[in-house]
């Protein structure tokens, strides 16, 4: 038990420099940008034309005339107090903006994840069960092909076929589960392919292990062996992938969100980039980084829940 605790504490401590690194990366993003947020801010309607003095005043008001290191430290201090700053465009706290959009992205990611789990794992198990048969071979190739489909292209095709032509599914918006079907499928396609192959390989590896051979020798039916001994033991690499993937959807759904007009985190950052809304972009990077790190940590914990023997020494 102590070993586990020690391991978790070590992992937790490692998170601190990582998070610090993320804040630095986010800050640098703002610094390397070539444009002047003060000017952008004053010309948002595209009609007004601010004078140099007005711009200088705004820069001072935003604290942009201080040295970088001072800007960074004061900003970091602010973040530690849970304050991500105020969006240049909407004038609202970025934290509130992110919270407004988080549920959308979370539900999209969760639904996608469900979709992946309920398709890829059964198919992976099936492939392992039929190892080296024709259907295994076809599915393996199919898995590789669906990982190669550009998600945004698939999204456009979906919308064309299912909304415009067949009037089956809504094009856009957020509210019911139905709104999530097309975006989730478009997002899930790639991972379904990857996960199918991973599940198959993981299960095959477990099936070669000693205790499975023993079980076989005892005369248990093969599907029973897969179900009782194989599946659970093969889930560890699968969960790693899913954990990483969940974090990746939270951060990487921008394209799909923009196509289906889902008001999630991804559309938010695209909007922020368009408007050169640095605090919003930085807030987004920090926030998604945090979620990402958190999920990786949860994955680590789940290792123990699944199989406490795994990690006691070694990598």
């Amino acid at each position, binding site marked *: 038990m102590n070993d586990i605790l020690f391991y978790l504490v070590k992992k937790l401590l490692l998170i601190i420099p990582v998070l610090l690194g993320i804040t630095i990366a986010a800050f640098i993003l703002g610094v390397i940008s070539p444009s002047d947020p003060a*000017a952008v801010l004053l010309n*948002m309607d595209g009609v*007004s034309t601010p004078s140099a003095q007005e711009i200088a005043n705004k820069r001072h008001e935003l604290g942009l005339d201080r040295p970088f290191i001072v800007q960074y430290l004061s900003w970091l201090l602010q973040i530690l107090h849970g304050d991500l700053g105020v969006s240049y465009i909407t*004038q609202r706290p970025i934290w509130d903006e992110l919270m407004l959009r988080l549920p959308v992205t979370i539900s999209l990611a969760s639904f996608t994840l469900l979709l992946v789990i309920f398709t890829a794992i*059964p198919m992976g198990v099936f492939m392992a069960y039929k190892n080296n048969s024709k259907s295994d071979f076809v599915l393996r190739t199919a898995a590789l092909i669906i990982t190669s489909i550009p998600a945004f292209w698939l999204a456009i095709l979906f919308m064309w076929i299912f909304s415009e032509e067949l009037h089956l599914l809504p094009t856009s918006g957020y509210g019911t589960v*139905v*709104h999530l079907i097309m975006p989730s499928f478009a997002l899930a396609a790639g991972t379904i392919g990857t996960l199918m192959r991973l599940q198959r390989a993981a299960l095959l590896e477990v099936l070669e292990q000693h205790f499975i051979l023993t079980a076989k020798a005892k005369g248990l039916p093969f*599907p029973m062996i897969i179900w009782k001994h194989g599946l659970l033991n093969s889930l560890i690499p699968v969960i790693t992938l899913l954990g990483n993937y969940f974090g990746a959807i939270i951060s990487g759904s921008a394209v799909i969100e923009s196509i289906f007009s889902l008001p999630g985190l991804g559309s938010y950052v695209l909007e922020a980039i368009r408007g*050169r809304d640095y605090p919003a972009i930085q807030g987004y990077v920090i926030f998604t980084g945090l979620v990402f790190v958190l999920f990786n940590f949860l994955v680590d914990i789940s290792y123990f829940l699944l199989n406490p023997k795994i990690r006691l020494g070694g990598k």
Partner: protein
Amino acid sequence: MRNYYLYKTALRLFITLSIMVSLAGCSGNTEQLNDPDREIVLAAARDLTPGDKDPYYTSSILQVWEPLVGIGEDGRPAPKLAKRWEHSSDYTEWIFELAEGIKFHDGTPFNAAAVVKNFERYRNITPRVSTFYLFDINKVYPNLKEVEAMEGNKVKLTFSQPFSTLIYSMTNFGSAMFSPYCFDSSTGNFSTAASGTGPFKIANHVAKQYTVLERNDDYYGGKAKAKTIRIKNIPNAETRYSALKAEEIMGVLDIGSLTPALTSELIKDNRFAVAIGKSTITHYLFCNGEKAPFNDPRMIRAVSLMINRDVLVKNFFHGYAIPTGNFLNGASPFSKEIKPRRNVEEAKELANAVLKGQKANITFLLPQYGIDRYPYKEITEFIQAELKELGLNASIVIMDWAAIQDARATGNYDIIIGTQGLPNLEPAILFKNYMKRTGSANMQYRLGYNNDEAEQLLDQLDATLEIADRAKIYDWLQDISVESPPCIPLFADMNLAVHSKKIQNYEPLLYGITLDKIEWVK
């Protein structure tokens, strides 16, 4: 074949889940098909209700609030909440007589005291950024000294300097009126949903998703036809198209509602129609006049003569724009019609005279908004091919608006394609921005415009108070802008009101659509 049951169980689970999901979705759609009061759903590219920090809370096109002075059908200022007005002979005192018996949505009467409160708010929020128009009381009401309520439901504005074009400056966003109880008087932020006097009230608003409008049954004028209208926020143009096609939305509104190409694609389908109206927007090429080759005005004229505006309008705007040679947009009541001239031979001669047979490499900037709202990508690529014939090798760079501003600051470009809207129906500001040596647009775009005659006329304009006299100057300035253009006008934009034929009276206005008139076709 023997034991598939594990796989089958999983499959069954998945199918069950899918069915549950589809059922959950279908249960919502039980509206009655012939109820004339059923909700009309429209869509816009941006959230038209930015909310409490915005100077206006919601766009004027949702008709929730009304201004003192509106815009008439002829494009001139028209009475709205102010019934009539008069001014002292030196244009320093203006008296507005307010319409009687009007109430804000929250029941507060609209009167002189409310107007004074709104002017106090204007002062408190100055300057306030907005996605619509930046609000700065010193620009809309320069040198405003005092606002007082007078007997007989009147309000007097006193200026320390004469201001003869006040009425033009006050239109729409310049004089939005809100109930004094819906905003915090010290910060000017809205404390509740905006409560105006318009034909619609805000019934519900979810940021970035939708605004629901409800008919104001106590409206003093002609009441709105539709009982509830939901304005969805669909940022992606292709998605708005798909949503129309799938009949999820009945129409689109606001700038960039649907690109010309998508519009012409959509109305191939007989279920849809488009109504066309004037727009205050003109598309221009802005040339960097501070460096070669556009430091020579002949080069600007060569480009203007070379561009085939008719083909551009026909192929890429699908006819939904007007080729123009006039710097001043046709929506201004002071504008006159100037046809663009095309002469390839003359253009080549001019270019040759400037380049002396050499080729020049130039940078052509294309703002991202032009791709989202207009066929700018096709247009720039087309112009790129035309410029090649003049000896100009243009490389196109797509940039966000913010990045374009940076490029302007460093002067690292030769041509920018872009739009300029009329900030105001009275074109003084526009002319000054572009044609005065110190004009802000002249400096920012590095147009290098330097014309003594224009300079003189614009100085003269400040001393000219009578509108008729000013009109003459505007006329003159337009002629100058043809002789020696500050930038190259391409086309005047059109407002497209695209809608399903299931609703009617969907007409474009100069700003917005006839929201209060639309209704289901019976």
